[in-house]
């Protein structure tokens, strides 16, 4: 599987799991080589570890990509996985960033069914969360929201009075605070 030079976004899991205490944000800087994603995925799968979110995007230097992997799990075995991932030839580095020292954000789009009668209520919620309205029809709306995962969860909670047709979350992206590199 090649890492293309575009943002690839995959699944999110239940917000409950995303906020469990042993949550981790791995940032993996990799060479853009064929198979690098498969190798990393395999390292997790072999140890029965579940990847909760995964974002791959091109680095500033086009020869590299940045993967941000959201996980929760046992501390001890995670150290082992980080070392196994770091060992892969195509991995330049792999770091687990805490919430204190880094900025962690995600982006989501939510589609609800909403007629004219309830539109202003929906827009009120959207405004509170700083959402953008991406699509509006007589019967539906798509909002987008960016922020930390808790904020997205709160929006999901508030909007659940409406019929939510679908939701897509990017998964977390991480950047270290201050001058240091991620």
């Amino acid at each position, binding site marked *: 599987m090649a890492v293309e030079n575009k943002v690839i976004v995959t699944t999110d899991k239940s917000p409950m799991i995303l906020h469990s205490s042993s949550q981790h944000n791995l940032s993996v800087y990799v060479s853009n080589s064929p198979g690098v994603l498969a190798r990393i995925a395999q390292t997790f799968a072999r140890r029965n570890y579940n990847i909760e979110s995964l974002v791959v995007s091109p680095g500033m230097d086009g020869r590299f990509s940045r993967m941000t992997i959201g996980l929760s799990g046992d501390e001890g075995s995670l150290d082992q996985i980080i070392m196994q991932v770091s060992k892969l*030839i195509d991995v*330049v580095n792999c770091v687990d960033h805490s919430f204190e020292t880094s900025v962690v954000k995600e982006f989501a789009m939510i589609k609800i069914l909403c007629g004219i009668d309830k539109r202003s209520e929906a827009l009120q919620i959207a405004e509170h969360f700083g959402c953008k309205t991406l699509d509006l029809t007589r019967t539906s709306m798509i909002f987008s929201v960016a922020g930390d995962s808790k904020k997205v969860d709160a929006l999901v909670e508030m909007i659940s009075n409406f019929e939510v047709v679908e939701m897509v979350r990017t998964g977390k992206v991480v950047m270290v605070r201050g001058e240091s590199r991620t």
Partner: protein
Amino acid sequence: MAKQELDGAQALLKCLENEGIEIMFGYSGGAVLPIFDALETIKTKIKFVMVRHEQGAVHMADGYARATGKPACVLVTSGPGAGNTITGIMTADMDSIPMIIITGQQVTWMLGKDAFQEADIFGISMPVVKHSYLVKATNDIPRLVKEAYHIATTGRQGPVLIDIPKDLSQGPFDGELDQEMDLPGYNPEKSFDFDKAEVKAIAEAIKFSKKPLILAGQGAMLAKADVELKYFAETLNSPVTNTLLGKGVFPESHELSLGMLGMHGTAYANKAIVEADLIISVGSRFDDRIIGQADKFGRLATIIHIDIDPAEIGKMIVPHYQCVGDAKAILTELNKHIERLDSDEWVEKVQGLKKKFPLSYKIHGGLKMQHVLDEFYNLTEGKAIMATDVGQHQMWAAQFYKCDKSFQWLTSGGAGTMGFGFPAAIGAQLGRPDDIVVAVVGDGGFQMTSFELATAVIEKLPIIILVLNNHYLGMVRQWQELFFDERESGVDLVGNPDFVKLAEAYGATGYNLKRPADVRKVLEKALAHRGGPVLINAEVTKHENVFPMIPAGAALEDMLIEPPKEKLAKPTGST
């Protein structure tokens, strides 16, 4: 280097040769036609050895590397040819053995279309290689070969696979033969830039030990740290035990050596581990076969782990002190900071254990594998290169054939691959033509790769194939006897061929060995025969069990030194 008119396949061979590859084991087929053609069209110094099955080719490359320390190359076709290499690659990967595997592949535009003999070997092999490549352009070949060789032979060594579509190997090459590597994520030179403060801390931790024990593994051997290790042990006055793969890195006939530890290790090595107040592992990965029950391992000891692979630190055992890097470089530094320990009493005690619990066997009651191996050790003065298969014979060979030198003991440790021994011996003999090379095999494992007799005969290799034939899968039978109420299931090898006739059918020589009184005579006859492969079919007793034994997952103190009198519970640990 100036540009020459070459195709991809010719460039490939030239690059492999430039890297220092001397030998290539392989089997032809459609997708590698251009590369086999290049073997004829360009003058290459690389020797090509035609095998009878691709698995054999990989084990031969493996045996060659284990006996010489140098990597060899494997060349096979796509689809089934590539698929047949997997067990061999896994075996090499588990034991950190360097090699380069070249697989032919369907033409680029047919990839993913289920074309004839197309297999995604790049994907299939991914979990069992150190690294792998699918070639995208003919002109990349020199860089990929250089990277592959570099990756295979540095850091923690291992197999690297290069999958080459046929259109690219037969396409014109118009690049440079000497290209720069591009490996920003791979820095094996760090192995030599270890943390000296950690070494100092280790030296401090060692200082007050009264019961030290050094655990020498294959990492020390691959780093060629024999001399440093010997100085380390002798200066400290510390006993040394070794892993199965570490046999020879510290002379097993040395008075400080306790031989192999672990599941079927010596009683004295295992007893020493239990009592030691300091365990210094140099290049061992604390494999489940040596630690038994992890939380009880070395409970009384300060544990020090020296390893080239940071991912091994804390994987099985969390050490008190550690240092990541090349064993030779670290020991060289560590040796500057050590002095003799107050360990005379301990060494004396351990010597006492050696006398109290020696490895032994009974000569009467039929021909024993141990007897054959012990006699063979005496006749060859411990100097033969021993390639073993997997099972009871392997453990007895490890116990009774003491190794004093690195690279003389070739065995599949991590993977435990039956069928490994004989082809590994072929590779070893090709790499070291003047040494006595022995394939010690069981009747089960030998039949998995016995067709390589053809290869051994064609190459006129004077290998001794010692078939320790108990007509059983003995190790599995032993477990069934001990843990499954003696219910034998799937272990009786009825229908074994007449191995002497089998050898003769291939043009090799064969001898039968049936009586204990004939052991010396038959072994001497085989040793004197240097004209080609010679097989000894030793008909040994059927129900002998290997002891000492630590049931899988049990603590080292629960070792069985002799057959148990009571029924045992099923092991709880690893397989």
